């Protein structure tokens, strides 16, 4: 679909070996987790194969990205940039589109240990960054998508909850600045860098251009390309001589747990106790992790294989785990640990709960501590069927999260009864708090079978119904409310926000070349 002169112009920018229009290679960019749901939602046959890009380019620098974007503007070619590139939003939506694969831009530009920020390029992964930060006794906020995904992508472009969110917050709020090739090819270096050459602040002078770049959800790659991000860092609670050490063999690795770390699973009979306990505990900014799921989820999190998880479920966890949350206390010192340990125990006792680890109902291994801090636990949810996706996502406070959980259950049960999604008795949820407990969100991880048409269709229908429930019952904005059609539906009960998004799109992408499939077009669906 690309004229030769356009292709050659792109080739001149990145070099012969960093561009392709070979169908075989392009095909690997046409396949995405989530395409099967989006195609089902469009009423098509569910398939992970989607639109094949016209070319893929592998730039190595911001200047190359800028030159590519300018060519796209010049020749009316759409583009989307990806970093680690997992999920439907990493695909392109029209044939005359190129994909900008940023995997060659993979440097950690700076770790400013004193001032606790790092500057990274798109293809630095969470695990890589964490491994390097640990050498300075630091860590960053890693999104739940996993250790192999890009923190730049999350901080600049995507909703960013993570397992350590009580301690490290949300990716939107951790961004200190970004280098951004906007859709018309201009480069913005927002915040202090533009003025000082240093990345310590992302806001100003005056208002913050962070305001147009991402929002809570992120622009999902629909508004240009981010080539650098400066992000906040946090203290990693371990002694200075502690090192990340792994022993053993897959799947049962062993890890040297830092001193003063402990996992708890406070379990309560009723939502009310759960809610009060979660408020009271996380309000103290004393925990690294505070997250909730179902019995099935708990089994998946603290086991190493699918079979082991299933055995644990049927060994009694199903009956035992009611309303629980997992708490990781990770303290810097014995004194700090003693306080936090006492706090957790106090709250369990106050609300008539019990710690499922203490009762022996679940037994996290040292490796699960490692997986907690490396944001690997979310990946365990894939073990049941190689696939899951989340519905809902409303983010405000703990009370809202609990309400969504309650409202979701009967909805989910319907689809479980149909046999199209995994049976977690409607209990499968994921709640995490942020910044102590100043915010919380709930999503509903749901297992389905990507290779089964009925299951894909069923999940898609379930997600649509969840969206409707959220909209009608004012349960917050779900995660995947992107693209013109659904934006317009939600806009009707959400201050008609698409009109502003469209104006931003029109102002910053006058030629409409930055793929809008998971963002918005300036013109709308007319």
């Amino acid at each position, binding site marked *: 679909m690309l004229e030769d002169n356009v292709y050659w112009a792109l080739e001149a920018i990145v070099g012969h070996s960093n561009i392709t229009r070979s169908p075989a290679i392009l095909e690997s960019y046409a396949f995405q987790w989530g395409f099967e749901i989006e195609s089902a939602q469009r009423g098509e046959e569910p398939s992970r194969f989607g639109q094949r890009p016209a070319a893929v380019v592998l730039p190595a620098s911001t200047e190359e990205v800028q030159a590519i974007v300018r060519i796209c503007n010049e020749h009316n070619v759409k583009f989307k940039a990806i970093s680690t590139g997992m999920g439907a939003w990493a695909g392109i939506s029209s044939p005359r589109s190129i994909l900008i694969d940023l995997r060659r831009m993979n440097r950690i530009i700076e770790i*400013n240990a*004193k*001032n*606790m920020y790092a500057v990274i390029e798109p293809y630095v992964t969470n695990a890589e960054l964490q491994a390097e930060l640990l050498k300075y006794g630091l860590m960053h906020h890693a999104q739940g998508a996993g250790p192999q995904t890009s923190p730049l992508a999350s901080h600049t472009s995507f909703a960013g909850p993570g397992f350590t969110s009580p301690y490290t*917050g949300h990716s939107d709020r951790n961004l*200190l600045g970004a280098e951004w090739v906007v859709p018309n090819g201009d480069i*913005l*270096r927002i*915040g*202090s860098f*533009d*003025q000082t050459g240093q990345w310590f*602040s992302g*806001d*100003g*002078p*005056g*208002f*913050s*251009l962070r*305001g*147009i770049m991402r*929002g*809570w*959800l*992120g622009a999902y790659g*629909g508004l240009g390309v981010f080539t650098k991000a400066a992000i*906040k860092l946090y203290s990693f609670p371990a002694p200075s001589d502690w090192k990340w050490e792994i022993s053993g063999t897959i799947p049962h690795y062993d890890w040297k747990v830092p001193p003063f770390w402990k996992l708890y699973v406070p379990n309560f009979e009723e939502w009310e106790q759960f809610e009060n306990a979660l*408020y*009271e505990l996380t*309000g103290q*900014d004393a925990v690294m992790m505070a997250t909730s799921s179902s019995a099935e989820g708990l089994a998946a999190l603290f086991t190493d294989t699918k079979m082991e998880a299933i055995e644990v479920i049927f060994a009694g966890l199903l009956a035992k785990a009611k309303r629980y949350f997992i708490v990781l206390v990770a303290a*810097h010192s014995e004194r700090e640990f003693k306080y936090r340990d006492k*706090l957790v125990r*106090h*709250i369990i006792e106050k609300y008539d709960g019990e710690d499922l680890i203490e009762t022996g109902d679940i037994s996290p291994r040292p490796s699960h501590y490692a997986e907690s801090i490396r944001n690997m636990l979310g990946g365990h949810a894939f073990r049941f069927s190689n696939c899951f996706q989340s519905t809902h996502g*409303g*983010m*405000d*406070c703990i*009370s*809202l999260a609990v*309400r969504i959980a309650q409202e979701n259950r009967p909805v989910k049960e319907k689809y479980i009864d149909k046999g199209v999604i995994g049976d977690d008795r409607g209990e499968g949820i994921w709640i995490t708090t942020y910044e102590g407990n*100043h*915010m919380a969100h709930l999503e509903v991880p749901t297992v389905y079978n990507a290779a089964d048409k009925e299951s894909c269709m069923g999940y898609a229908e379930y997600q649509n119904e969840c969206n409707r429930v959220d909209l009608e*019952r*004012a*349960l*917050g*904005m779900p995660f995947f*409310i992107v693209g013109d059609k659904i934006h317009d539906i*939600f806009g009707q*009960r*959400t*201050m008609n*926000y698409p009109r*502003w*998004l469209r104006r931003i799109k029109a*102002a*910053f992408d006058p030629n409409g070349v930055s793929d809008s499939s998971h963002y918005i077009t300036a013109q709308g669906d007319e």
Partner: protein
Amino acid sequence: MNSDILNRLKEIVGDDAFSRTINLTFPHGMELPSCVIHPSSSHEIQQIIKLANKKSFRIHTISSGFPHHSSRGIKGHEYIIMDLSKMNRILRIDVKNRVAMIEPGVTFELLIPKLESAGLRLLLPLLPRAGKSVLAAYLDRVPITIPRFHWDSSDPLLCTEVVFGSGDLFRTGSAAGPGSLEEQWSSGQAQKNPMGPSQFDPYRLIQGSQGTIGIVTWGTIKCESLPTYHEVYMAGSDTIDPLIEFSYSILRRRLLDEHLLMNDVYLSHIVESNAYGCETVRSSLPKWILIAGVSGTGPIPLDEFEYKRDETFELAEKHGIELAPALGKIHGEKMKHLLTHSSLKNDRNSQSIVVSKKIFFITTLDQTPFHVSKVEKCASEYGTSTDNLGVYLQPIVQGVNTHCEFDIYYDSSDQREVRTTERFIVTASRLLLDLGAFFSRPYGAISDMVFEKASKSMVESYYKVKSIFDPNNILNPGYLCFGRGNQ
């Protein structure tokens, strides 16, 4: 301004809220407005802005007077003052979610006790004016004194309701919906999530915009639990470096509540109001002072307080820092009072002759000694004694960066001193800008310098944003890079 417009404005807000008598202190050189109106609702504000768009007049919004540093003013255009001070309702205090919803006329002196009686505390800037609008302060990203609660530079501002310059009403963050506020409350929400809605963060465009994007009609403010135990300690040093090193080690840990550094001049001026008192206090102090608050809240507050206190003292000792309940003539209890209350002394009605002008910007804590030395050198070149140079360093965003503030005290009755100080401010600001200071909240002349330095693409982006939300440049023209004329 034509009488039809004035009559229409009077019609919108009512006779009592309309005045052609200008009873405000105006920044030097600012032309007088056609009228001052006191709207009482977002609906009225919408109507007024729509009228301004239609009839091409400008609106300068205030909620508790003009900022000290103010704009270059509106010239060549008819304008009105929209004074929001009468929109002063505390709409909601949600203790469980630690959040307050307030209108722009709510002042610090009004809100602090109300929150306290509900068991909450406001995350305060250092000695805000008692009559200062809480929302106006936070919309300007004024630094708060507790860095551990300052997760993002936008804190503690959360959601807002805003009327954009286009006249459209909007709610930002989770307050946008889906659903009305009542529906949201009924589903357990508390307008706590400032992000969004959806794929943009309008609150970040409103905040820091100096009123150029929209007029905020209410906002939710993140609060914290009132501590059961709370002590303030101080440490001194003749050089700033040890205090900075200690600060870095403790900022990582999020142990402290209040955490700020200042020089003797600054501290003496905030605790004493007259020259003699200042000098007496100052002479009892070392050159540099670190102020550290420790608190205990929640279900086992004493445990929290004691562990944090002990950890803090242990860390201090490791760094050779001696923390104590008092320093010189200042007791921690007095500091605690200052840190938890608004200031009457700094109120606009103060009759003090010794006043100050400020230079403030953001940098990192380790760069502050460099900036201090340069400003001191510059001051000496202007014949300004360092005895009149207050320095306040406020770590923000959990220690990632620092608000660095220089207060230059001078005798306002001495015109020569006034002029020298003004010249010094401009020179020092230019110098600091060249040396890497980030003037993230630029006003007046600094604003011009900052936007001259900004890249072309950045300035163009600012204009694009402005054209989206205030397409006719109705709101606060003259602020930021948005010049006095039509843009």
